[in-house]
């Protein structure tokens, strides 16, 4: 084959390829025209695990349920205050153990069936009896009774400061009772019925792809302005951000921190570093559970304080999470900031490596052999800690690099192992670690988070693990916990919680590094009404009751990117055809020529 023939054939192939490419490009224009419904597209990095409220547990699933199932009481967008939901009012008995709820008039399920007290009572009582995963914690002590169609009473066996807040998802009895014969039956129920009482109901679910929710005309507040909400799953954060920029999605949840910074300068896009009270901590093995083989030095509070002082939390906050979130010294127990105390200046364990070194010297942890690593008082084991790095965190390596460097400054060495969350959980249960960095996200009520650090929750048997991964507990803390748990006066309860958190800060094995942000970004060109919960600090979607979806209204003429011109399309297709024919001819001709070759 001569050069010329080759060139010609190559051109033929290139033309054909180009033509195919053009077809593909042309197709985009063709596809965007169809929809007339107002659609909000939400990008996220996690799939809904199950639409069944007794099965799923991902954040994505909660968001779906929140939209689909209204609750007896709602949470105020501004501050989580308990406000009327399905129940328009309620009365408490004098002993604070019985509550009577009055439902709104004319409540209907999305399928048109009436929503009555019977649905509510059935949900509460069945979830208690069958120990539904997500309901049970709330309903364990409750007994609900139907008074009439619109009235029910709920009785609690123990005083409960969380009441009258009643935020469990009420499911339609007429659908669910056929599936709830046994717990196994219920777990197997796919819950794709799409019948709910919230603003949107599930219409279609494509696994690992997207799920679509449509407006519920029977929602007690009225039909939302948005016709449908599409949750779109991305397996890569970068791809999600690109989709946001190109307008494929309207809002993105858990934007990677770097992209978040990049998006700040993007016009038409608003970034929200929403606080939910979630935090990241450095945990040390206090060995309170008795399991495992934590380093003895970590049971010495001086060492723990020295470690806390050796860590430049501000620098870590600025560099690793790019200042997204908040520099708060203590546990976050609720998205609501009122529960978080301020640590008195004299108690704060701020970055001060010199003081940390001094403290260690004073406590007898000296580097006798001069290798840069201190030993236990009177010689013996080195202060060389096993650090369990969390591989499922994007920031795990960076945090480890920094902490390793800082601890080196105070004569502490690390031996790093890396674990994914499942493995790390096991390591924590087994107590075979010295340090790890992980995080928590609290519920609205502080009780659950506070409960995790009680002695009850210590893991004393790896086979039945508890929540207390600080591996630390104190009688004083436990006493305060019991007190706040039954304290019905809110101000007193807040004070008790502040005491607990301060105690925890001073004595426990946790060094809270920073409070995480729920990094979100949304486009401003198509919708208004984005609502942060709580006001000013919270995120706009995936909040506790996610008021944004109902509040959004489309902007007139916004996002009018559907400029499909049929003429152009036909032109492109015609051009493609011509190219294909010409390309094909060239290929055929060059083949003919090459046949003369011997």
């Amino acid at each position, binding site marked *: 084959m001569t050069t010329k023939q080759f060139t010609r054939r190559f051109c033929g192939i290139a033309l054909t390829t180009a033509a195919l490419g053009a077809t593909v490009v042309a197709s985009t224009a063709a596809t965007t025209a169809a929809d007339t419904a107002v659609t909000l597209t939400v990008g996220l990095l996690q799939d809904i695990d199950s639409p069944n409220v007794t099965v799923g547990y991902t954040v994505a699933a909660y968001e779906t349920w929140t939209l689909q199932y209204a609750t007896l009481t709602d949470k105020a967008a501004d501050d989580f205050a308990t406000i009327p939901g399905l129940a328009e009012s309620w009365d408490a008995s004098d002993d604070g153990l019985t509550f009577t709820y009055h439902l709104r008039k004319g409540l209907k399920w999305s399928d048109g069936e009436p929503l009555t007290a019977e649905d509510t009572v059935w949900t509460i009582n069945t979830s208690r009896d069958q120990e539904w995963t997500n309901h049970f914690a709330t309903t364990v002590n409750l007994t609900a009774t139907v008074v009439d169609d619109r009235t029910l009473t709920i009785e609690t066996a123990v005083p409960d400061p969380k009441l009258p807040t009643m935020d469990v998802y009420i499911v339609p009895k007429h659908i669910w009772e056929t599936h709830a014969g046994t717990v196994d039956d219920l777990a197997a129920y796919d819950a794709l019925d799409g019948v709910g009482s919230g603003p949107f109901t599930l219409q279609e679910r494509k696994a690992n792809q997207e799920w679509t929710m449509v407006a519920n005309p029977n929602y007690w507040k009225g039909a939302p302005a948005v016709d449908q909400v599409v949750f779109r799953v991305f397996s890569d954060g970068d791809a999600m951000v690109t989709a946001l920029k190109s307008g494929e999605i309207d809002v993105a949840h858990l934007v990677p921190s770097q992209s978040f910074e990049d998006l700040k300068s993007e016009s038409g896009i608003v970034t929200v570093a929403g606080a939910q009270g979630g935090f990241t901590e450095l945990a040390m093995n206090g060995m309170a559970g008795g399991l495992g083989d934590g380093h003895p030095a970590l049971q010495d509070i001086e060492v723990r304080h020295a470690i806390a002082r050796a860590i430049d939390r501000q620098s870590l906050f600025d560099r690793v999470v790019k200042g997204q979130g908040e520099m708060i010294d203590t546990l976050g127990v609720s998205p609501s900031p009122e529960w978080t105390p301020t640590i008195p200046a004299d108690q704060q364990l701020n970055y001060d490596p010199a003081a940390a070194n001094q403290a260690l010297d004073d406590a007898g942890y000296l580097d006798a052999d001069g290798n840069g690593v201190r030993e236990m008082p009177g010689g013996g084991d080195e202060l060389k800690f096993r650090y369990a790095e969390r591989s499922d965190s994007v920031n795990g390596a*960076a945090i480890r690099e920094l902490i390793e460097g800082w601890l080196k400054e105070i004569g502490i060495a690390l031996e790093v192992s*890396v674990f994914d969350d499942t493995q790390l959980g096991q390591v924590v249960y087994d107590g075979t670690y010295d340090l790890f960095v992980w995080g928590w996200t609290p519920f609205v009520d502080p009780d659950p988070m506070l409960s995790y650090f009680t002695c009850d929750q210590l893991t004393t048997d790896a086979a039945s693990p508890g929540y207390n991964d600080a591996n630390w507990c104190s009688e004083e803390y436990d006493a305060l916990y019991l007190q706040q748990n039954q304290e019905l006066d809110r101000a007193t309860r807040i004070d008790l919680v502040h005491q607990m958190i301060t105690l925890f800060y001073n004595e426990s094995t946790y060094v809270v590094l920073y409070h995480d942000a729920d990094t979100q970004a949304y486009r401003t060109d198509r919708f208004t009404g984005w609502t942060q919960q709580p006001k000013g600090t919270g995120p706009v979607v995936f909040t506790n009751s996610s008021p944004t979806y109902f509040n959004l209204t489309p902007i007139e003429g916004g996002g009018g990117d559907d400029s499909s011109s049929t003429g152009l399309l036909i032109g492109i297709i015609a051009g493609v055809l011509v190219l294909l024919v010409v390309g094909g001819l060239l290929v055929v001709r060059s083949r003919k020529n090459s046949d003369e070759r011997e």
Partner: protein
Amino acid sequence: MSERIPEAEATSPVIGSVPRSGRAVAWDRRRASAAGVWRGLRNDRLAMVGLVVLVLFALLAFAAPWLSDESSLSAANTGDNPIWAPPSWEFLFGTDHLGHSVAAQFLWGSRISLFVGLMATLLQIGIGSLIGLTAGFFGGWVDSVLMRLTDWFLVVPFLPLAIVLAAVLERGLWTIILVIGITSWPSTARLLRAQVLTVRQRLYVDRARSLGAGRLHLMRRHILPNVTPLILASTTLAVPISILTETTLSFLGLGDPTSTSWGGMLNSAKDNSAISGGRWWAYMPPGLGIVFVVLAVTLFGRALEEILDPRLRQR
């Protein structure tokens, strides 16, 4: 000629000079055949390009400690560096989200990538050779059992198994090496078994047997020498696959985050929005590093294979 010629006549005109010993002849032979291989390689321009690139990378990897301080890999020491600085004279490949010099990471990453590639290959070839040789040489039920095992391992999905193993075993370089090694040996085993069977069919093996050679002799003198080149060739061709697998595993976040490898750099670039942010310098150097090393090894390996593999040499 029924009487043996006396020693004194050993250098008679009929016989000429004789070599000092058989060992010397064997040594000469090895040297000559190595020289032959080298000649063959030198004639192959692509192979030489591959070799040069490979040597270059090996030198870089070797010289990493002198070219860049290992401490610069820790974020604790990069606080003063700008973040996401594009390539410049100070930071040849720019910096990443924590101010790490991408060039330094690239340099140190080459060590990890090459090391893992090499070790995983050795493990894989080791297991594969052992099983392939044993099966081919002993035949019979040993062969049946081993080949059944190989068949089984051959259909176990490689990457998913690697992912599961990497997820459940303790993280670390040796885990990666182990995972690659134990998931990729079956093809080597099959190849070697086939080669042993072919060699066993050869007339010269028959001749050796009729000379009175035992199994050990056959293995040592005929089968191994004839299989070794193939082992060598498949080793060179397995290195790229090991490197690529390491890349994929690290990219998926299953590598060892405590040591910077090229795949790990890709993972970190992806996690820190280098793509959407247009920060190409974070993923182009490691990617191109992989491409060039793999290409170089492949070019070299294919040339070597053509020279060493008796099936290809005839062409």
